[in-house]
């Protein structure tokens, strides 16, 4: 039998019907994650057609994008002051109640960023096809799943039929060999990959991240890598499941238990790409030469080593980006003034990210004039961080410790930059206005973000740790 990639194995195992000359393949979906922003219209269309949700037990909802992260009131509730957001939240509650869908609502112990809670509950498992109306669904590929973002029309397709029409993508192997140096993190790997591929370089492809540097990563670090696959234009990113994956999943509430666990692990061991399997394309990286990375422009592909010179604008689009960023004529980013630091988002809001940031904050103070927001990815992470005292490290330093949600990554929930402000953010997008109209974003790792918070400048965290 022809050696197959992990992508091909999962794809073929989910074909309701292969593609024909006239019709795309029909692909079955194992897990559909739903949130408040990209689902309301889909539920409306179901009602208009008198349709039910085909497999409610394969559908899980939470609220994260438009929900505030402001601290709870005395009643223990998180106040929603924005009437449009409140309406959207109420709409999701009604839709989930009417269609029988599990919902982790605002304020509940299971609530959090959709791409954080799926893995946390053990819902995200190797070999699954996972979709969500959110481009960062690629995060779940860290478990050896085929996971990708869809639009709202497709959300309605999956709700009604548990299936999607799909054209097969191409495959791209991103091989990262060697050992990272101290102070260089998973976020730096993926920012370096995107800087080389470019923001459109992965279009039409599913990435498989491979090599010794990838295998050495924890599950949380692997999620950071897969999360940003879309920032190179790739639909999905995936990493072969191994002992690290199984150890993370074992005992999680929604993971298989007992005999079913052993059976599942045996099947999962068959998923990695076969020796000799071919990819449409391969890109190789040497982890041992990577530096902490930071972006300087208005897309995630405009990244560089933190101590590097800002590349000269090669065309009008790059010139527009530098002008928006207020960096025309600037030589370097190192030492550049910072107004806001945001540590959070589906890229970097997990416990290990918070621990890394805390190593920098501990015993230091947030610099004068800097606002630092620390936003855990889920209520469970918040609780775990508080149990080990991380919240006190942050608040004693003068940072804000918030409720779980997407927060300033998407700036549609009250957390946002003011026009002209500079932020170092651990999130995934530095597009114009992404963190608030007129705001300017430098993307970086939690270590680099924390270092900027305590110095008020773009700083190489290795000077502080």
């Amino acid at each position, binding site marked *: 039998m022809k050696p197959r990639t992990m992508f091909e194995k999962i794809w073929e195992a989910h074909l*309701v019907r292969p593609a024909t*000359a*006239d*019709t*795309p393949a*029909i692909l*079955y979906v194992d897990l559909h994650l739903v949130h408040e*922003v*990209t689902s*309301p*219209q889909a539920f*409306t*269309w179901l009602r208009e057609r008198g*349709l039910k949700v085909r497999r409610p037990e394969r559908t899980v909802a939470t609220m994260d*994008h438009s929900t505030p992260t402001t601290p709870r009131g005395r009643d223990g509730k998180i106040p929603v002051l*924005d009437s*449009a957001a409140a*309406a*959207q939240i109420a*709409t999701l509650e009604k839709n989930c109640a009417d269609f029988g869908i599990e919902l982790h609502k605002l304020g509940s112990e299971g609530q959090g960023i959709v791409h954080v809670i799926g893995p946390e509950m053990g819902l995200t498992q190797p070999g699954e096809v996972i979709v969500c*109306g*959110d*481009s960062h669904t690629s995060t779940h590929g860290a478990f050896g799943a085929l996971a990708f*973002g*869809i*639009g709202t*029309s*497709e959300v*309605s*397709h999956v709700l*009604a*039929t*548990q*299936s*999607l*029409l799909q054209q097969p993508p191409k495959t791209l192997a991103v091989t990262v060999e060697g050992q990272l140096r101290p102070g260089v993190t998973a976020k730096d790997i993926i920012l370096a990959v995107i800087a080389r591929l470019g*923001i*459109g370089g992965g*279009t*039409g492809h599913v990435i498989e991240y491979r090599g010794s540097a990838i295998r050495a990563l924890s599950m949380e670090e692997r999620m950071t890598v897969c999360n940003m696959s*879309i*920032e190179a*234009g790739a*639909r999905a990113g995936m990493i072969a499941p191994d002992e690290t994956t199984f150890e993370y999943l074992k005992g999680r509430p929604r993971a298989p238990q007992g005999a079913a666990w052993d059976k599942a692990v045996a099947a999962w061991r068959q998923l990695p790409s076969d020796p000799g399997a071919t990819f449409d394309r391969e890109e190789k990286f040497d982890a041992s030469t990577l530096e902490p990375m930071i972006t300087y422009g208005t*897309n995630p592909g405009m990244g560089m080593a933190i101590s590097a010179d800002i590349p000269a604008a090669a*065309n*009008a*689009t790059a010139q*527009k980006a530098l002008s928006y960023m207020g960096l025309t004529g600037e030589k370097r980013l190192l030492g550049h003034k910072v107004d806001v630091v945001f540590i959070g988002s589906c890229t970097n809001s997990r416990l290990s990210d918070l621990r890394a940031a805390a190593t920098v904050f501990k015993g230091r103070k947030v610099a004068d004039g800097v606002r630092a927001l620390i936003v855990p990815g889920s209520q469970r992470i918040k609780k775990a961080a508080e149990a080990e005292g991380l919240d006190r490290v942050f608040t004693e330093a003068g940072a804000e410790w918030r409720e779980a949600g997407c927060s300033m990554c*998407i*700036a*549609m929930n009250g957390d946002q930059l003011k*026009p002209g402000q500079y932020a170092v953010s651990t999130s995934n*997008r530095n*597009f*114009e*206005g*992404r963190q608030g*109209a*007129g705001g300017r974003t430098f993307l970086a790792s939690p270590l680099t973000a924390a270092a900027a918070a305590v110095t008020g400048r773009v700083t190489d965290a290795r000077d502080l740790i």
Partner: protein
Amino acid sequence: MQPLNTITSKTVVLPVENVDTDQIIPARFLKATSKVGLGSKLFADWRFDAEGKPKPDFILNRPEAAGATILVAGDNFGCGSSREHAPWSLTDYGFRAVISTSIADIFRNNSLKNGLIPVVVDPATHAKLLAAPGATVTISVEDKTVTLPDGSQVSFPIDPFARYCLLQGVDELEFLLSQDKEIAAFEARQSR
């Protein structure tokens, strides 16, 4: 969805590469629970100043752009967020096609489901279109061609099923619903 075959229109040229869906419609406008009226938010931060007044230099605010239904944009149009609000805002504004040298995957998929034709052309054709804002071009879904003002024609790729859906004005959900037996058979196989 209305059947869609041929579009003839002058073009609007937005010569910016990597236009992301946050530019097409900023996230703060995604709190809507319907898709009606999003055209008023299209390119909001490029189109309007902080007080909400139109920026006179932005192409959509210029008189020559009025009535155009074909947008010619730089490479990699529609990258970033999966928000279907992006094609909703473009179509609500009046656009029926986007021409570029490449179009991001999710945006392309979303566009095809909303009667917005994603047209990818070669760099030479693209350069001609960028250099001639306001040129009248014709896009045929049936023939998969773009006809330029000089009469020259180039073809563009489009998935056969998406093309069929555009031409007939049918949506993919109808087709998927008609596959109920096959889906049930798959579920039976999977649960064994």
